[in-house]
């Protein structure tokens, strides 16, 4: 199990780095799909089966298809793109490394919150999670549909060919 954990972690981090550093945008998208599949593997290791399935459907099924569609329809898969200056790149790498170090240092000085509930391996299953979602979290769940509606209207408005009203 430990071996499986380390294997999934290495796949996840390597493909995440490849998202940033690959030359073609399509390679970035493929790397991101691999990274998301590895994250779904982590969810399964953590006994969150429902979220693993939802993650695969929503991210690799919907979001990444959207990315690939935009890449192909807009013909964006070109290697030549304007790069940042070398100084800016070094600053980016240094600052993100410092961010990681600060987060780890903050973790080192932290203390552990004791677990007050008995261990339950069925919380991530559809039965239990659906009951919680439709009883305790009903209002946020229904409100998210309004969010989706506004996002849909916004995407259609922005994506229209040309508006008749002059801006």
């Amino acid at each position, binding site marked *: *199990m*430990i071996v499986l*954990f380390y294997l999934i*972690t290495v796949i*996840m*981090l390597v493909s*995440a780095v490849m*998202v*940033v550093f690959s030359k073609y*945008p399509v390679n970035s*998208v493929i790397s*991101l799909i691999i990274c*998301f599949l590895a*994250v779904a593997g*982590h*969810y*399964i290791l953590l*006994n*969150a089966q429902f*979220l693993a399935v939802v*993650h695969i459907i*929503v*991210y690799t099924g*919907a*979001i990444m298809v959207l*990315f690939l569609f*935009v*890449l192909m329809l807009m013909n964006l898969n070109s290697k030549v*793109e304007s*790069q*940042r200056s070398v100084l800016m*790149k070094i*600053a980016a*790498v240094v*600052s*993100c*490394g410092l*961010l*990681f170090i600060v*987060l*780890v240092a903050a*973790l080192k000085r932290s203390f552990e*919150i004791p*677990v007050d*509930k008995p261990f339950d*391996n069925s*919380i*991530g299953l559809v039965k239990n*999670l659906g009951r*919680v*979602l439709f009883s305790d*979290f009903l209002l*946020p769940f229904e409100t998210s549909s309004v969010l*989706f509606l*506004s*996002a849909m209207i*916004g*995407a259609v408005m*922005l*994506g229209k060919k040309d508006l008749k009203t002059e801006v």
Partner: protein
Amino acid sequence: MEKVTSAIQVIPVEYYMYISFALFAIGVLGVLYRRNTIIILMCIELMLTSVNLLFVAFSAYHSDPAGQVFVFLVMLVAAAEVAVGLSILVMMKRKINSVDIDLLSRLKDEK
């Protein structure tokens, strides 16, 4: 199933925090490093995913389903965000024929 639950009890929760931090740092690196808007959107997705992973880890270790419900809602917000972001990108490509993020700085003021 039994093997999987024993895996949770073998691996300490700090490991999940470390890999989540690393994933978040890689996302920040991508946003600062690249100028292609589509890569920047993907790196924002990476950061959201790292936070989701941490939520699920704590939810599993503390046996509290509220964290997993929260991850579900974050996924919905991420989907909506990508739809709007990509339509902005399509409009940008159509108007100025480029996906360079620095060209959007002209949104700042008219002069």
